[in-house]
């Protein structure tokens, strides 16, 4: 049997490893768009700030793939799926067959219609490539503008503070609101921003960016003009599901799966940040976002692909406990 996994994040890698643990005879091909070995995405900021080095960043090695006999195809993008033929198509038009397919393409930062026209001026903050580029530029950067209320923004703000950058943070409301976090935590965030001397522009929105030589001029809805060296901005995170186009696989924001991580199409599974799981209590679909959840979903999907029956239990609240530490401890405690 040949199992193809699209997406070499934590969900995809865990699934590949799980499948091989259960049955060595299953051929596993793991395909990832990024050029690098799979890495701890949630530690990118630590890597940026030199808190960790390469060895702590990567959670696999070339040896890991050799030993587990997993074919890892890095730097390759899958553009479409053909469930009827049971094939996938690469960006370069290579066509590959599968018996079982796992989609673990994660999510990415998304720009809404207002920011989209300025995408070339916006520095994204999601991949190792982003961080490596930043490592190159950041020494010359003094002032940063940050916009967006995502967990990765919070991570970024903490990182930039660590690196002693001057920060202007544009917030839509009175206080920064981070989805999925409890209100009490939001209060903590608010104090953190204040204590660190981050300049917060509240009740406003980023509407325009201009580039003049190497500097940027940012304009807000309330006509505030800020000159800056770099702009980090996004509206929200969205699952990477464009490869589903033209298929009948059920989707909403993400790929809809049941608790076995099965999609509506036979032999196609999905796991991690790209999947929306049916919440039996809420009786609705739910992206159970975050690193630990993606890992667990990858494991469940792997087990089911390899022929076991495993059920994913949705996590009611997001604790974001990683390596035994609550999220606050990682950032500012």
């Amino acid at each position, binding site marked *: 049997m040949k199992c193809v996994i699209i997406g070499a994040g934590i969900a995809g890698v865990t699934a590949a490893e799980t499948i091989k643990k259960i049955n060595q005879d299953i051929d596993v091909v793991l395909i990832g768009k990024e*050029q690098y*070995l799979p890495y701890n995405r949630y530690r990118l900021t630590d890597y940026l700030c030199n808190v960790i080095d390469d060895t702590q960043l990567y959670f696999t090695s*070339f040896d890991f*793939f050799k030993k587990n006999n997993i074919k*890892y*195809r*890095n*730097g*390759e993008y899958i553009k479409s799926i053909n469930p009827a033929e049971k094939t996938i*198509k*690469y*960006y*370069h*038009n*290579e*066509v*590959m*067959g599968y018996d079982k397919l796992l989609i673990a393409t994660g999510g990415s930062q998304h720009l809404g219609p207002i920011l989209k026209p300025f995408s070339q001026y916006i520095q994204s903050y999601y991949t190792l*490539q982003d961080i*490596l*580029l930043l490592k*190159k530029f950041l020494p010359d950067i003094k002032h940063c503008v940050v916009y967006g209320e995502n967990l990765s923004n919070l991570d970024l703000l903490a990182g930039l503070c660590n690196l002693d950058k001057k920060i202007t943070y544009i917030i839509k409301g009175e206080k920064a609101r981070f989805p999925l976090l409890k209100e009490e935590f939001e209060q903590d965030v608010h104090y953190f921003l204040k204590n660190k001397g981050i300049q917060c522009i509240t009740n406003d929105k980023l509407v325009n960016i201009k580039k003049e030589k190497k500097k940027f001029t940012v304009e807000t809805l309330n006509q505030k003009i800020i000159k800056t060296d770099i702009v980090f901005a996004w509206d929200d995170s969205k699952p990477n599901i464009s490869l589903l186009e033209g298929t009948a696989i059920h989707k909403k924001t993400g790929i809809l799966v049941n608790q076995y991580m099965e999609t509506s199409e036979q032999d196609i599974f999905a796991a991690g940040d790209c999947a929306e799981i049916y919440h039996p209590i809420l009786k609705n679909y739910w992206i159970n976002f975050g690193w630990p959840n993606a890992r667990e979903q990858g494991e469940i999907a792997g087990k089911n692909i390899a022929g076991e029956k495993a059920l994913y239990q949705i996590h009611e609240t997001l604790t974001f406990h990683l390596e035994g530490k609550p999220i606050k401890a990682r950032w500012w405690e």
Partner: protein
Amino acid sequence: MNYKELTVRFCGIAGDGIVSSSRIISGACADAGLHVMVNDIYSAEIRGLGKSTSTIRFSGSKVYSMGDGINALVGLAQQESIDEIEDIREGGSVIYDSSSPADIPETESLASHIPPEVNGYGIPLKTLANQASGSNRGRNIVSMGALCHLYGLPKTIFINQIEKIFKRKGDKVVESNLTAFELGYEYCQNQYPLNNLFVMDKKAKPLQIISGNEAVAHGAMDCGLKFFAGYPITPATKIMEITAKELPKLNGWTIQVEDEIAAIGAVLGASFTGTRAMTATAGPGLSLMSELINLSVMAEISAVIVNVQRGGPATGLPTKVEQGDLNISLYGGAGDSPRVVMAPTCSKDCYTSIQAAFDLAEKYQTPVIFLSDLFLGQRLETDDIKRNINYKKSTRIKPTRQQLKNYQRYALTEDGVSPLIVPGEDGAFYSITGLAHNTAGNPNFESEVHLTMTQKRFRKFKSMVKDLPPVEIIGDADADIGIACWGSTYGAIFEGMQIARHNGVKTKMIKSIMIYPQDEESFKTFFASCKKIIVFEMNFQGQYAALLKSTYNIKPVEVHIPSVDPVSPAKIAAKIMEVNHELTQ
């Protein structure tokens, strides 16, 4: 990552512009003062769209071989390039076309064979080439732009070279190639903003780039070659192509004859009239020439015979290198038939030692077999060759007035060299023949005369020693391991010695362009100073080792490198380490 040296390979089929790509890159690098070596490999099949590769190694410091492995592969033909992947070093890269309009099955896709330790860069080469020129033809130039960005090479050196190379085809062609280059560069800059950096000395002076065959042709013409006769054969044809173009400008002649027997016949005829003459061939041609080379020995007519060796026997491996023609060169004649055999190690040697070959041939009235090979003949390399125009160190020794009174064409002399005049010159009349003859040149079959004349012919080879290009001792004088090798394998062996030294094992080498005769005293002294001797050569029998064993009574470790595309310095080093291990046990 920072690089000071890179090896890049283009792989494709006819029409993909493999050779022109490598000429642009190597020219650009040489102009920027980088040291370059280029090796092209073609499939043996003459018809059809055979696969070809061109590999360019460039560095801030001198390169002696093609090294081990490659940093980057440009796969212009997907399927054909798959086999090349195994040569890519960890962290290396593959550029492939991501704009194939048709579906590619997994097994035929280059990308599907790229291991994770190697970076794959899918670039829409076809699409960008079309954007630049309206055809697929500029895919090689697009990929050059991509390479330039990925390895942080200075753009201007490529732009200048593209302008230089395409200038004669008109502004439009220059422009579309420059656009193709820019598009490849920009695409990579946007998609792969993180790049490597090639560190280079901006003040380095431009270097000359030349192939072994070109160096042979120009060396010969610069030292008075006036007549070339030949029959085309891979990998020697280039020499005739050059002389055909250049000799008429020097009041000389090139004739293409019906076969190699005619070629050597014409050369002997020309030489008989006092003209510096040469032919160039490969193993099969040399086999055909044997009888007339014997005539050259017997009649004592100077001739320079270049043999650009390829794999044999018979038609053998027309597009692969081998050092298998040493025995035929040394011994391939009936009777006791001594001839000079020389083997250059690099382009610079090709230039200088073809001139030395003429010196020896002219002065000692002997055939000289000049053993180049496919790798040396065809590879391009940068070198600081100082041209020696109108170079003539030695000429034929003319008889004195006194000697002319009773002219003896084969007069017995101390050094074995008889004064010589050309037919038609005043005061002499003599016959020349392949039959055994006496000093006057008249046929004679008496055993005593035959012995005397044979001794005379061999005596020349003893006298010649003082005129031979000197041997060089390379490496650590106090090393216990001594190395002997010959011809084009020298560069890889030299780099192998350096790798071994890096790993704590010292070696020294005796480098001699002369295979026969040799400066035997120097060889004896060298071998006496070694605890272990290794002889490296690229043939099955150990032809050079056999010569050394019988001449110097040594017992070397013989390494018979199979006929391969460039020799691997790492493998040479591994062998040295192995011998050292045995020695120190």
